[in-house]
């Protein structure tokens, strides 16, 4: 008996010695370990889908979530003269009052969201060697398209930013906290988009296509003042014949497979993982706020004056509180909310409206802008023709000479509440004057330092003094 027990003990000890490491190293079944993944085309493709997942953002209340493009209206539209909060509450109200602090959670959210897009794009770019020759170019093109899209947003919002062109570790603090001049960032954007245009073959509206890359690069060139390149790119899209204006905004915003949308971010109704909640936020206390991205009186006035048939498809009086105005371009799943504007059949916080990043009307107006080329006006027939297509749809006449102001106004009413206004004002060199006037009319003040968002304080704190802040006043 004694011997047997000692044998058993001995056996146990042997087992622990021999099988211990295996017993103590189980591999997860619900996850994939990176070293063993990204080895085939299908897996690289999955890596690319993950980039769009990051742009799409998380439909989440968590303070640490990355909401991606869902929250973009805060940092763009609500800093312009187009929209504001309903009740001036909390950090959301810092945008309209030009008092954004470095601790604002929304600016940190946008920053981390788009660096996450860049990280996922870099992950794909670093694994390209496993792709088959047939697909490698397309994968590279698509990853670079998304990376350029992310950098173009970040550089316009934050100015000089850290340039991460490969995956980095927490130890690479030099890269994380060194702000690179915008020109260098634009160099990468232009080069990425040129690679994208050469290599993209897809035609999906929710993924990078050649036209999407061309349109994006056209806007980059307009921003940089390279009007000729922008004109060529716009004409290439126009002459491709693949796109046309939708009949009206109802078709454009509520029939997602339309001829006008060139690039949009896809969402699906009712899926927590793939839906958006900005549509709910823009209603009266249907989302988590009491109402944000409410239309300013200033925007209402301009729309009423210049919008033509677009007016009734752009904003409405809040049925619940009639002194306020709401955006109706992205009504939750197309539902109007009934008599009080608040009653929906499907959960508005799980909305499926795609977010349009680039549409044909924008390209037509960029075409006009490119031809105008920084001068005050144009009567070029090609410019007039493009302008006319947009005006015709709105049921408005087209002037023989288009002034820069008319183009800016046209962009404002055509692309109202589509996160274009702030960037348009900056690109047209009008941000300072227009927003100063708008601010003082509302008892607020706008200064040149408000043209850029603060770098999130979170990053500044971690950088131990390496990362410098934008001027704040």
């Amino acid at each position, binding site marked *: 008996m004694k011997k047997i027990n000692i044998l058993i003990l001995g056996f146990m000890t042997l087992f622990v010695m021999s099988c211990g490491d295996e017993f103590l190293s189980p591999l997860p079944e619900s996850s994939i370990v990176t070293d063993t993944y990204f080895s085939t085309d299908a897996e690289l493709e999955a890596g690319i889908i993950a980039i769009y997942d990051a742009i799409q953002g998380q439909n989440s209340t968590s303070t640490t979530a990355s909401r991606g493009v869902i929250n973009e209206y805060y940092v763009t539209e609500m800093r312009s003269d187009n929209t504001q909060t309903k009740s001036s509450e909390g950090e959301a109200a810092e945008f309209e009052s030009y008092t954004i602090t470095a601790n604002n959670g929304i600016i940190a959210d946008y*920053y981390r969201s788009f660096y996450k897009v860049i990280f996922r794009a870099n992950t794909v770019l670093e694994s390209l060697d496993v792709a088959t020759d047939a697909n490698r170019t397309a994968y590279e093109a698509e990853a670079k398209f998304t990376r350029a899209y992310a950098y173009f947003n970040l550089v316009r919002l934050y100015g000089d930013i850290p340039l991460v062109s490969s995956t980095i570790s927490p130890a690479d603090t030099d890269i994380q906290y060194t702000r690179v001049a915008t020109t260098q960032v634009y160099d990468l954007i232009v080069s990425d988009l040129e690679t994208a245009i050469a290599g993209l073959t897809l035609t999906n509206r929710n993924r990078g296509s050649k036209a999407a890359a061309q349109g994006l690069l056209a806007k980059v060139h307009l921003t940089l003042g390279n009007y000729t390149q922008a004109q060529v790119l716009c004409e290439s899209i126009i002459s491709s014949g693949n796109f046309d204006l939708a009949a009206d905004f109802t078709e454009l915003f509520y029939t997602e497979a339309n001829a006008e949308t060139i690039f949009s971010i896809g969402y699906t109704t009712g899926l927590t993982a793939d839906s958006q909640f900005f549509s709910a936020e823009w209603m009266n206390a249907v989302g988590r706020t009491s109402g944000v991205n409410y239309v300013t009186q200033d925007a209402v006035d301009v729309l009423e004056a210049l919008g033509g048939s677009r007016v009734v498809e752009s904003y409405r009086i809040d049925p619940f509180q009639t002194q306020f105005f709401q955006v109706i371009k992205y009504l939750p799943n197309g539902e109007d909310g009934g008599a009080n504007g608040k009653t929906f059949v499907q959960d508005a916080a799980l909305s499926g409206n795609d977010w349009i990043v680039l549409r044909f009307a924008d390209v037509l107006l960029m075409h006009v802008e490119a031809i105008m080329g920084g001068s005050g006006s144009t009567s070029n027939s090609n410019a007039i023709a493009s302008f006319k297509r947009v005006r015709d749809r709105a049921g408005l006449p087209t002037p023989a000479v288009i002034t820069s102001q008319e183009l800016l106004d046209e962009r404002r009413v055509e692309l109202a509440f589509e996160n274009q206004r702030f960037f348009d004002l900056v690109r047209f060199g009008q941000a300072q004057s227009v927003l100063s006037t708008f601010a003082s009319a509302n008892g607020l003040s706008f200064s040149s330092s408000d043209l850029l968002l603060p770098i999130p304080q979170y990053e500044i704190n971690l950088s131990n003094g390496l990362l410098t802040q934008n001027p704040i006043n």
Partner: protein
Amino acid sequence: MNLKAKLVCMLVLFFSISVMSQDEFVLEGVVTSQSDNQPIPGANVVVVNTTNGTSTDFDGKFSITVSNEDVLEFSSLGYVKQLVIVNGQTSLNVSLEVDASQLDEVVVIGYGTQKKSHLTGSISKVVNEKLDQIAVSRIDDALVGQVSGVNIQATEGEAGSAPTITIRGFGSINGASGPAIVVDGVVVDSDYLGNLDMNDVQSFEILKDAASAAIYGAEGANGVIMITTKEGKEGETRFSYNTYIGFKTARQSDAYKFSMADHARNEAAWNIANGTTGLIDNLSEDTRYKLLIGVDQDWQDIIFDGGTITSHSIAARGGNSKTKYSTSLKYLHDEGVLLTDDFKSYSLKLKLDTQASKKFKVGLSITPSYSLQKRFDGSTHDILRQSPWLPLYHTDHTIQFVDRANFPDVQVGDYAVQTHFNNYALLPGDTNADVDISSTSNTNPGAKVLERDRLYHKYKLLSSVYGKYDFNDNLTLTSRFSASIQKTNQSRWQGLLAHKDAASRAFLRLENQTRTKLINDNYLTYNKEFGKNEVTATAGITLQSLNTKFDRQTGIGYTSDAIQDLSAATSISTWDSYKVERNKIGMFARVNFAHDDKYLATVSLRRDGSSVFGSKTKYGYFPAASIGWNIHKEDFLSNSDVISKLKFRASYGFTGADIFNTSGPLVDNYAYLALLNQVTATVDGTTATGFAAINIANPDLQWERSGEFNPAIEFGLFNNKISGSIDYYKRTSDKLLLDNPISSTTGFTSALVNRGEVVNSGWEFELRTKNVSNENFSWSSTFIGSLNENELTSFADSNGQIQSVDSKRASEWINLEGNPISSFYGWVVDRDIPLENLNDPFRLAGLEAQDVYVKDLNGDGLIDDEDKTILGDPYPEFVWSVTNQFKLGNIDASFMFQGSHGAEVRNMGDQYLFNQFNSGADFNTTSTPDQQFIKAKIFTDDIIQDASYVALRNVNIGYTFSDDLISKLNVSKLRIYFSGQNLMYLTADNYTGLNPESINNTSPTTYGYQRAGSPVFSTVSFGLNLDF
């Protein structure tokens, strides 16, 4: 003995039995202890050389059938055996002498037992005497105030919800702060505390210092609570039935009572004082209308509806000299004091031990249990802040005010909603219907709770078998296999009427979790005395494997409440699942040494391997050493009349932790690996699947470690009439597993590292006195006190981080080195804004401004972040209890007062209930002076309140029926009692909330956030103990 001789003996025996049976009679008596005249329960009374035997009951009484010539043997652990010849006596009182050699109580330590007098670590033992008579739904709730150094706080307060247990303070940031739970040697999840039956618990042993807990290595970082369940005893089967029924009432907050009558009175007084003209009855239209609706209710009365708690437990225990068994059945139902909370618990237990052969003992234990908890699915603050004029349901009276243009279908009996009362023509004939009194479009606050159903079904099966083989008198091998299987099915239904957005927000979420934990322990114990030296050595191996499977689905698009099932959903909005595995191998060895019972020493070492860490850091070593000196055994004290016990002990040891809660179960279980998770994106209307990285792998990640130094003195005076102990401890927890913030340019916002250090230090006191002790009356007292100080000594890149719980109401916490883990942060209140500067001083709460003047701490003439400071912390500094026990004849009584001091809470209840969060200024912006010094109260110490309390925690008064009656009833014991919990509960003057112990967000870095929460409740209960 040859066969013939045996036969003769048997014949003699047979005849003698038949002869004896002629004159059998019943002998009754009481067995007491010679030292203190107290009865000895459970003493064995056996007729020598027969199987005829019994044991004494709770009061030391016995009755046995004997005959004249019988010799009775009385024995009990710790006493000298006594033989008495019956010799015609029909009643017999026996007084047993204390056996000096066996005086020692035995204490359960990890993987073994030890004489209490030989302990060198800090281990507290609590014997279940009356704990099972405290009318609470969980066994941990009953331990409040029983042990020094152990803080049990009812942070949630719903029926069946787990309290937060900390032993000697919070030692981890992301790890578990609760102790390990060991039931009869099996390490189980702390959730088992909600399913075990207190009636079945023999004792708790709490390993407090690291040296004692080090034998559990990776389990022991926060101490260990060891639970020993009752065993059968040799003798006849004894049944015991214990039951009680208790009535629970919530303690309401006076500050949170709002009434329309008060409001109207204040408003009228204000209008008269200010000479406001043009009003009817000096009241605004709104107020007059609200009074007309005729409802004036305190929402506390509705949601704190009280409840009853009932418990039934029946057990049968017995056995013979070889086999002992214990089996029991429990049912407990706690209705809770909140409107919808409810907890039912059922459990069954069988424990069987048998001496299979002289050297081999086997046993098994099996405990299936089921509990059903219904939660209060809402937040009390949200309901309590509702207007007193709003009824729960429409009545014949209230229906006449409904705005029929907008709400044509509302009927009597429907939930009343504020907007129903809009557009009312207050004046007769007033066609311009214009009185709008709604301040919210939300649904009725009661509907939010009543139309939701949140259930936790928990099925647990804890089973184990063991074998114990004695190689010889000194060496024993123990081997145990145990399996604990836990299945939790959680469902959360939100009905159509629960939300203002009605059907679009109705959903059903189902979550299923299965945890299977398999453990195999094998250890050798060697025990030998060499002259005056006694050595006990233990060495063994433990293998543990824990598998967790989880899945969750959410169904949306319900069009009716009729079928609350996924099948009735229009679509599924969320589905996810995971499966994780966590394995551990522990090897341990310990040597206890005692010389002459005077000089004591223990050394131990545990080596743990964990699957959570990478190959370089998989194994952790946790050594411990401790010494003790029984000074009273020295010659110079052994004859002292004053000092009967004096012991010094000191320990130093290390424990570890590999459990942490950071970025979800995958990362927390496989942190050393780089992991990819499935993600999805919508591409042109279809869902496309992708894979994305979810963590930055850290192959060097390793164990959290705690090292603790614990010197102590134990003493006894005047034959231990006064006894006690004083412990000092200092525990340094370092290499903390932190989810350290990193630049988001990496694509992540945090990465796991071993950085950070927390120090907990403190004192513990226990004092027990036997004030009076004689046959008719006894009185004893116990005082227990614990002082703890918590300090964050290193917090890596998070040092000084300011955190908030809710971005909309962003009151702040700071985690700053040199202070406790969490401190409240903000501005300091200077003075109130004068009433005359307020725009509307008589809003509902009355006289409560949203804003306040704050102090310019740095004197630079403006208020900014530089003027913020630490405003307090949520950790109690001093926790104590005083228990007095009395016994007078058949009546016994005990009273426990318990208190906690030094903790603060951020009472967001005030902020919500006193409407302190409107963003706009509520003061007159032209007339109010020094506006640059005004800040919203939420960012100040205005709502930092003292969470101290003193409670009459437990009262128990019992009456044991005398022998005459119980013998007629043919039972061995009958006792009835009255028990009360929290019959008195005092809070600090500035505390306005419902429960100073309630904490909504138990995240360690934002600890102390209270949002109304669940109220303190008192329980009055009546119970019965019956043995037969």
